[in-house]
């Protein structure tokens, strides 16, 4: 397992992982601070969103607490041209690519089904049907290669693709098919599996006999396991394998071993199926604390952490106010985007609905 930062916050690069270490050598203190800031931002966002859900402001929340290192590290390993195909829990990856967090809250409030621009943001829509996005990422990567945007040594124009998915999703046929398509096409694609050890109530042990990072091997996709609670390992592994993919090395799988500290969603009750001792064990391995310890050892002072805490307060207030201010979506939205050209059936239904709603006050029944 690739680990560059021990659970005690000690940095060290074993010889066998030297190629990953090089990526850390290139980072500046500013980069480290950015990583920490965004991990803290992600956690704060998560806690606030959960509170908003409890207050009825969101229909559902999907917490990612515990997965900050996996997501922020990996997100920053993805280049400025690359395309990202997330599942539904990648709020941290979204943060690293400047996605307006309100678009995520809008979706979970039930205002729309996503609605952000995946071309401009390079961050594709959240995928709820497990594994579906992995095939899309594979096809996208095939297209990138067909366009000749791989292996030119041109960092401005070459690109690679990354897909995020969970341990549970690896069971879906779509994921196995993705491995095969990506392998035979030598696609510029990184499969990033966040093994948070649970798929709702199914433990990872009940979902696979062979470590997940080996899942792609038989299809021709090599893989590696990293410590998903080590932000530096997650950054270095993603950056390296995205570079390799961009340069034409073909697909690769990264399994980030982490832990889902929270419930599956706000509708879930994990006390029904897992021990609190296990949760406590992982809480003690909190990725934020690990990185904070490292930063303090590097001489980062309290001022910085105070500043981060303050930014957290500000973020909370902002998203709170913005969520309360989200308007009810207009009825037309349901019809507006179904087809790209007018369609007589739904045009007729929208027309009927408008008349029905308009007449409802006076002419409507009861």
């Amino acid at each position: 397992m690739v680990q560059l930062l021990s659970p005690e916050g000690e940095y060290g690069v074993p010889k066998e992982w030297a190629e990953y270490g090089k990526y850390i050598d290139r980072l500046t203190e500013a980069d480290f601070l950015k990583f920490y800031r965004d991990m803290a931002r992600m956690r704060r966002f998560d806690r606030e969103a959960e509170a908003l859900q409890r207050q009825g402001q969101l229909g559902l929340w999907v917490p990612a607490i515990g997965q900050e290192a996996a997501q922020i590290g990996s997100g920053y390993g993805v280049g400025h041209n690359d395309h990202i195909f997330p599942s539904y829990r990648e709020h941290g990856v979204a943060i690293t690519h400047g996605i307006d967090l309100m678009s995520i809250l809008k979706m979970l409030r039930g205002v729309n089904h996503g609605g952000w621009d995946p071309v401009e943001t390079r961050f594709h829509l959240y995928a709820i049907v497990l594994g579906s996005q992995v095939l899309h990422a594979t096809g996208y990567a095939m297209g990138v290669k067909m366009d000749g945007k791989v292996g030119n040594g041109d960092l401005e124009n070459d690109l690679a693709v990354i897909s995020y998915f969970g341990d549970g999703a690896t069971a879906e046929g779509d994921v196995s098919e993705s491995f095969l398509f990506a392998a035979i096409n030598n696609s510029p694609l990184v499969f990033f599996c966040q093994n948070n050890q649970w798929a709702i109530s199914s433990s990872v042990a009940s979902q696979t006999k062979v470590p997940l990072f080996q899942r792609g091997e038989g299809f021709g996709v090599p893989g590696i396991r990293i410590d998903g609670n080590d932000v530096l390992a997650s950054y270095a592994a993603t950056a390296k394998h995205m570079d390799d993919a961009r340069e034409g090395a073909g697909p690769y799988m990264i399994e980030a071993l982490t832990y889902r500290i929270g419930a599956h969603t706000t509708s879930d009750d994990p006390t029904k199926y897992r021990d609190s001792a296990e949760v406590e064990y992982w809480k003690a391995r909190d990725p934020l604390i690990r990185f904070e310890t490292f930063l303090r050892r590097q001489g980062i002072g309290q001022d910085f952490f105070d500043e981060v805490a303050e930014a957290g307060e500000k973020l909370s207030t902002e998203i709170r106010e913005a969520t309360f201010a989200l308007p009810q979506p207009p009825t037309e939205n349901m019809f507006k985007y179904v087809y790209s050209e007018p369609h007589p059936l739904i045009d007729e239904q929208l027309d009927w609905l408008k008349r029905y709603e308009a007449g409802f006050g006076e002419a409507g029944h009861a």
Partner: protein
Amino acid sequence: MSNFVELSIAKAINAGLRKAMQEDEKVILFGEDVAQLGGVFRVTEGIHAEFGDSRIFNSPIAESGIVGTAIGLAMRGYRPVAEIQFDGFIFPAFNQITTQLAKMQNRSEGFTPMPVVIRVPYGGGIGAVEHHSESPEAYFAHTAGLRVITPSNPNDAYWMIQQAIKSNDPVMFFEPKKRYWQKGPVNLDEPPMGPHQARVLQEGAQVTIATYGPMTAVALQAAEIAASEGTSIEVIDLRSLSPIDFDTIINSVKKTGRLIVASEASTFVSISSEIAARVAEKAFYHLEAPVLRVGGFDVPYPAAKLEEVFLPDADRILEAVDRVLSY
């Protein structure tokens, strides 16, 4: 002597499953999160504790695998009851259901019965994210070889799940998830009727509303409002979507002369369309007005904030009542 208990639909299905498992050791349950957790809606809660790993287990998260292995288990003499976690996640299994499960008996000229039940929580109104509120029943009713049933109350839920398990044909068992916690009396001694019979829930003289599953309660509410305004409505709970009990519908139409079919599902190429066509064919001279369909719009199920606009309510049904009465 009847032995009545008060149960919710979810608890009634749970009780029906246990009864079927006690009666026949070949009945096995599987699906995503059905064991220790009892399913995300707790429909199978406590069954693992009572029957253990050999009778109920969590499947890998692979719907095609769930249905495909159910087929193999049925070939081996088991009576699998597979749960699909939500309506919108049945589609990875669509191939196995439509090309294999539905056709195996026909392909083998009767040598391979398929006593498989697929339980599907369906329908909307729960404020969920995408893929958790759909009504895909028409796809399955359209597929020859499948039986499709849906209870709307606890007594039917208790009995229909057992009848489904006893069937040697594959049964798609659609559970109205929004109504899971709706309570009602369950007669533990006597099944109400066969699983493919429709039931007249309320007699009336002027308009028939045929409906099923989660919309049944809405139709009854509409009928009550109409009654207070002097309109007499007959409400039919279809219970079975394949086959459909056309006799009960046509007998009602002969009396009322007007028919509305209500569903959460969108109306284009739907259960409602089929009923409208059949009634036009078989009861044309009894009709005082065209058959109207009230259903969801022909758009993807919308985000939660718009679902109240999408789903027909009593007022939408009453608007149709006004229209059929004005012919």
